[in-house]
């Protein structure tokens, strides 16, 4: 980031995020022991996405960048990844329908 505007994240925030991430890793592990049926996977992926979002926003400074382009780049990557997964599933998921 540029010298004028680069944001120095305070150490306490990094520590907080770091420990939150570790805590939720433990949560993932603990929840996996409980039988929630199909929701085990849902919960695990939700936690993973939460953790990933924290890493991207704080550790990777996306929250602090004034550059909209960075956000656009990330969103478009997720969009096209979503296309790959959903349109492939459109085939594999409906093959036995007929």
């Amino acid at each position, binding site marked *: 980031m540029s010298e004028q505007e680069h944001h120095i994240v305070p150490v306490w925030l990094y520590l907080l995020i770091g420990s939150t991430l570790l805590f939720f890793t433990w949560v993932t592990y603990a929840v996996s022991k409980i039988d929630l049926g199909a929701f085990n996977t849902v919960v695990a992926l939700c936690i993973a996405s939460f953790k990933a979002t924290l890493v991207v926003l704080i550790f990777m400074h996306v929250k602090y960048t004034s550059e909209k*382009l960075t956000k656009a780049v990330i969103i*478009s*990557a997720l969009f*096209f990844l979503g*296309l*790959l997964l959903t*349109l*492939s599933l*459109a*085939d*594999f*998921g*409906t*093959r036995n*329908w*007929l």
Partner: protein
Amino acid sequence: MATAVVPQQRTNYLNAEHGVKSWLLTTDHKRIAILYMFVVTFFFFIGGIYALLIRLELLTPAGDLVQADTYNRLFSGHGIVMVFFFLIPVVPAILGNFLVPIMIGAKDLAFPRINLLSWYLYVIAGGLMLHVILTGGVDTGWTFYTPYSTAFASPKVVEAGMAAFINGFSSIFTGLNFIVTVHRMRAPGMTWSRLPLFIWANYATSLIMVLGTPVIAITLVLLVLERVFRLGIFDPKLGGDPLLFQHLFWFYSHPAVYIMILPSMGVISELIACFSRKRIFGFQFVALSSVAIAVLGFLVWAHHMFVAGMSVYAALIFSFLTFFIGVPSAIKVFNWTATMYKGSVTYETPMLYAFGFIGLFTIGGLTGLFLATLGVDIHVTDTYFVVAHFHYVMVGGVVMAYLGGLHFWWPKITGRMYPEGMGKLAALIGFIGFNLTFFPQFILGYVGMPRRYYQYPPEFQMLNVLSTAGATILGVGYLFPMVYMLWSLRYGEIAPDNPWNAAGLEWKTTSPPPTFNFHEDPIVDFEAYNYDELKDIPDER
């Protein structure tokens, strides 16, 4: 802009430094473009020789010129070399590399050393492919379909796959470089609405390179893992689903045809504007249609798989979506045509190529509709109809545009004019030869001749003979420019800075440009294609 100095005495990017090292270690985008031109042309030759041998074998119904296995290696080599080593890099890596920074008023691409790395990756991949060719070749077709490639084909498929993999990274880095350059390196005043359409087209292409190419890269890695270590991913014998390979392959390889055609469309926009002396009709629509094609291109890939055993519902979805990509392509053709309205049209060689492009691309695009239509596709897919269709788009379209663009910017690149009369003749020969080669293949396809056949029932011979005859004319049409272009390097007329009296930043610098492109940092205070402001300048020469 200073114009008083005699062109020959000025230092330019060609004579700024001398020696092999100054070329092989250069980070100047213009020199790298020249490096690409050498290697890409070389691979075009290799692919062309393959094409020639294929057409010779198909002259007679019996398999008589070569062995069946040899023939399979011929069409596979032709496909791999032409797609990965010619069509994908030809316009972006040569013309794009040379022009993108100049057209936006930058000194170089954003990452000059990565640009050179791209070229080296391309050369390494090309060397690997050449090694495959010289040690027996690969027999999978350019599509590498599993389980044939992972369990049956010649073991060379591993090396060929790696060649395509490495080449993919060359393409990724070029695309990445272009996107960053367009975002970050524009000269003061060069707003997005002032960007030439060639830049828009290359930007859209770069999006596909960055988003699509990694998927083919990992697919090839998985293919190699399955082939070498028998990791079960695609092979049904190991529990896999071969259709997954086809999905992943076409997720890249369908958008890849837009990697090939989009920059060519950008070239055509430049040519038509210049030789009609007008701003492109519906500029914003043409610009945005490039981006629309890039995005929609990712929604249609499975139309290659209608008979592959895919879900009926998925086929319906993909067929439906495929038609939408016809719209932005049609927008381009209509707008190019409308640009000539109330223009001042001249018929220099580049314009003839542009006419040729519109003709061939229109036919190629319309036959694309046939293939998007499910019932018809079932009959014509995997036949010569498909072969004809994609040659109309990819060879008719891309090569026409490349040659048109090369003639147009030749004075800028080399500082010499090409011989105009020979140029026109070559354009005409190429157009006739092309149609004679590939139009009969539409008929062949609908009659039912499958592609990748080395021998065929005798009733198909007549059309195949026509096609082979056309191919020889086409070969002349492509070789001829190479001869007179080389000739012009020494004997061609010295080119003025702006021989076409064209708009655009690249014509505001000297021919050839200096190492950092401009003698003074440009400031853009004019719209793209401001031909109405150029009209008072007297006719050149």
